């Protein structure tokens, strides 16, 4: 437990304090600005791309992708985290229920 926590603190603290006091070039700042869209796209894809589920339960995959598309539309209109989370869960639950009826 302690060694896992130690590595976590290493990742969290070392780059933060190594870069905190430095004056960065415009190019470096431009590159650091690429991190958020890359990280969130990777996290979303990690949740949605599940080859084992695609193979065994395509209906759930379709429900998940449709719910994700719905959340993206709500996010584009509102940019409201809570609304997106609520809308996503309700839509996904409805779509999952629909797949059991089909």
């Amino acid at each position, binding site marked *: *437990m302690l*060694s*896992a*926590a130690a*590595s*976590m603190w290493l*990742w*969290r*603290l070392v*780059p*933060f*304090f*190594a*870069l*905190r*006091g430095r004056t*960065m070039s415009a190019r470096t*700042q*431009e*590159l*650091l*600005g*690429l*991190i*958020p*869209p*890359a*990280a*969130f*796209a*990777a*996290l*979303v*894809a*990690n*949740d*949605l*791309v*599940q*080859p084992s589920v695609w193979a065994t339960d395509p209906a759930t995959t379709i429900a*998940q992708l449709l*719910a*994700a598309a719905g*959340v*993206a539309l*709500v*996010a*584009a209109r509102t*940019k*409201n*985290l*809570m609304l*997106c*989370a609520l*809308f*996503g*869960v309700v839509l*996904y*639950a409805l779509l*999952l229920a629909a797949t059991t009826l089909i």
Partner: protein
Amino acid sequence: VKKVLSYAAAVMASYVVIGLACGMLEAQAGMAPWMAAVLSVVLYSGAGQFMMANLLLAGSAPGAVAATCAFINMRQILYAAALAPHAKSWRLRDALAFAATVTDESFGVVIERLEHDSTWTARQSVALNWLCMGSWTAANFAGCALGAVLAVPTELASFAMTAIFICLLVAQLTSSTYALVAAVAAAGVAACKLAGLTQITIVAGAVLGILAGALATSRSTAAPAEKGGE
């Protein structure tokens, strides 16, 4: 506090549901509620804690559990690098309290505030992180203590987190370069998963996206210079 709560509420609510599920799994792995709470503070990683409990249940060696946990959390390096320039003038105490408690979700909320709200302070960033950590820790403790009598719909709860990530991603898509970065990162994750490289998917995908963006921006800045030199 009201302003911070309004930004933290969605993350805190999803942490309560996911944290309950995580606590239940930790109880199955043999942890006492106080251990789940301590782990939630010192490690404070949803993916890390789920994986740790699963590996302990599977009988993995402690060294393997620690190494796997360290590996899947390497994306924190990217978050720390992106946040550091915004913390240049912060007091050391605030910087430490903030940097030690960054998660995927709090990173998204705080970086968006720091980039677009000039009134957002270091203290507000720290408060947001600690409120989220408080809800995560309390939910892990409760899940571990009440695991036998609670039934959390894990699949729906985890989709709440996906929805939060989608919202944070959409907020970032402000230029064609960022859209390219996101598309390449997502494609990189898909490629890693199809290749069976499940433990490095997020870091590898994100790094590929950043490299694509770096290439695109270097070409777009080089093109006018070449044109001017002709």
